[in-house]
Structures are given as C-alpha cells and as structure tokens.
C-alpha cells in the first residue's frame, strides 16, 4: 500500500506492506536513521517522534495507520547542525554520552517545552520517564531541562 504523510514539514510517500512500524519505514525506506531502534517494544523511548501532536514511540505505530498524519522526528527538531535550544542545552550540560537515546530525549524535550515552557522538576521527570538513558544517569539531562525552564521564566 501507499501511505502519504507530512514529515518534518515535507510531503512524503512510502510504499509499504502496511504492518511495518513507522520506525522501520523512517529508517529503512526514508533513510531517516535518527530515530533509534533500541528495543522495539515501546520500553526505551529512543524512537520517539511527534505524531499529530503526541509524543509516541514510532516502533509501536503501524505505518498503515499514518495516512495523512503529521510527523516530526529528531531530524525535524533543529535544522541540521543549527541546534534547537533543547539540543543546545543538552550539549552544554554534557547530556550526551553514547548518544543512542539522545534523539528520543530531543524529541520528548521539544514536545514538552512546546506544550509547557516552564515545567517544574516533577513535571520534567515524569515527561522523560519513558526515555531510558544507559550512560548519563540523567543528571546532566535534568540540569539541561531545568536550565531551559529557568531561561523561560
């Protein structure tokens, strides 16, 4: 089947069987490898994308259900090397180590701060409770997001 959707501001088309995950189609059909394939069970958040305004795991979205959807991936958050403020904050605080979880954190952060520019710490923690990071212990990430919230106030 053919699925059309709005991806990072562009109209895109994918020819698919239909049951594939959005993640698979992004990575294998559309060469957008920024969304990561760490667990494919919705248990790590590395494949987070914004789908019609919701932050979801793209591994759990069936591509056949994406007709007409609006999707933002990590590639659509900044503009290549020109970082979005959430990306810059993570970089400055040392919130990147191996970086495999990073795209998921970037997308979740973009979603959070778009909806709530000044989240408190409890809100931040809960918003990122679906994003596993194995390297940083989250301290640098929390400092990055708390700093962003402070900058907004």
């Amino acid at each position, binding site marked *: *089947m053919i699925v059309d959707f709005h991806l990072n501001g562009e109209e895109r088309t994918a020819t698919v*069987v*239909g*049951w*594939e*995950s959005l993640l698979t189609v992004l990575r294998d059909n559309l060469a957008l490898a920024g969304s990561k394939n760490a667990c*494919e*069970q*919705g*248990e790590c*958040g590395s494949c*987070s994308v914004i789908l019609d305004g*919701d*932050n*979801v*795991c793209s*591994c*759990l*979205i*069936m591509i*056949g*259900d994406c*007709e007409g959807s609006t999707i933002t991936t990590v590639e659509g958050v900044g503009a290549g090397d020109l970082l979005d403020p959430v990306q810059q904050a993570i970089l400055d605080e040392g919130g990147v180590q191996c970086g495999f979880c990073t795209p998921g954190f970037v997308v*979740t952060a973009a979603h959070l701060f778009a909806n709530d520019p000044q989240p408190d710490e409890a809100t931040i923690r*809960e*918003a990122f*409770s*679906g*994003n596993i990071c194995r390297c940083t212990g989250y301290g640098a990430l929390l400092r990055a997001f708390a700093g962003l919230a402070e900058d907004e106030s």
Partner: protein
Amino acid sequence: MHFVAARDLATALDARAEHPDAELLAGGTDLMVEVNLSHHRPTGVIGVRACDELMEWRDGRIGAAVTWARLEDGSARALAQLARTIGSPQIRAAGTMGGNVATASPAGDGLPWIAAMDGSVEVASRERGTRLIPWNEFFVGVKQTSLAGDEVITAVVTPDDAPHVQEFAKVGVRNAMVIATVSCVVAKGADGFRIALGAVAPTPIRATRAEEMLNAEASISDLVLEEVARLVSAEVRPITDHRSTESYRRHASGVLARRLVERCRAA
C-alpha cells in the same frame, strides 16, 4: 495487506464483518510488539484509533479508543491514578482503554478498576448489534475474552451508581514503565467497600470474602484492617514468575487492599 482506517463505527463494523481475519488496531502498543518480534504478520488491519464513536468519553461510558493520556485527567479518581502508571507518556499517548480490555493481560492496569466498578464491556457487530458483557463474563482467562470474531469493543460502561470514592495502587519494582506485580482498586459505594485486584489471577478478580467481612463490620478497626489483608492474601491466586513470587504477591495484595481501604475511609 489490507488496511481500513475506520473513522466511524459503521465502517469498522463493516470491515470486521467482511474481513474476519483482520486485526483491530487502536494504539498499537500490544499488537506492534508482536509484529516487531516477527511473531505476527497481519493480513488485514482495521484501525480504530480515530473512530468517532470510540473516542467519545462521558460519565459512565469510556469509548474504547480513549487514550490513557486523556484518562489521566479524568474525574474518576482511581482511573486517573492508574492511567498515570501505564507505561510511559509515549505509551499513554497511544494506548487505549479498549486495547487494554482486548488484550486482557492478567496485569492489565485498567482491568481491576472495571471490576471494582462492576463495569461491563460494550461490544458491537454489524449483524447482531450492541451487547453489554459484564466484566466477569468478558474476561475468561489469561489474554482470553468472550469477544466474538465479528465484534468490536466499543466502550467500557460503568453503572450509574458506581462509587465515587475509589483508590488505586500498583506495586512494581521500577517507578515508571513497569508491569504490575500486583495492582489493586478499592472503592466505597452505597453498598459498601469493593476490592479488586490485578496480576494475581488469570483475570482481574474481586476479593469477595474480604468485602463481605469488611462490609459486615460496623466500624473499621485496625484488627478489621488486618483481617482484610489476611483474607485478600488468602483469596488471590497468584503465580511465581520472572516478575515476582507467589508469596510476595499474596502479601502485597493484602497490604495494598488494607492501605486502600484506609485511603477510601479517609476520603
């Protein structure tokens, strides 16, 4: 593969009748795991997450496609509490009440609430119309329900007199993204206390002996609370698996029930 994106119930029911092998897809949080693991290759799928009727939510009737993210903000207290413990924000944005009911996992977080409310599952088919299945007839075993092949789960329905005083708790060894070791809903209505538990039997269960004992007592002393805990621990039928042990689950069931009775009493 045949994909029907049903925007209304009639379309969904037609598709269900015409494609008996097609799978129903709501949030995808269960089905896609099976697909990703190569355990499953659907030949047809009926998507219902944007089905108008199924997205409706009003007092006493929760459309099957209502997401946990929406339910987190609802007025049914225990339902909101449990919704907040389901998976992660990403899962709650996609996962639905109807999906939880359809999967019928013993650890399904929404199920003890339905049991505590004495709720029913509303299902519909093109040929036979709508029927209401009481929760204890709908959930028949581990991941087994009485849904017929041509039916679609349309809603979870709770009676008008469902208790407003209701409390939820769930034990897991992680503070997010965790499958329940034991979950419990206690509600207090005109007929007294109701105690429902999840992850301690093949289906959600009510601790009826504990309820009877509790509701027969004029006042709830510490002794009565201890007896509630003891009876609940005895009444559940948990197993030992890689998530916990039978004995811990029995113990925790009693503790949770006792604590939630206290919380309801204080409410």
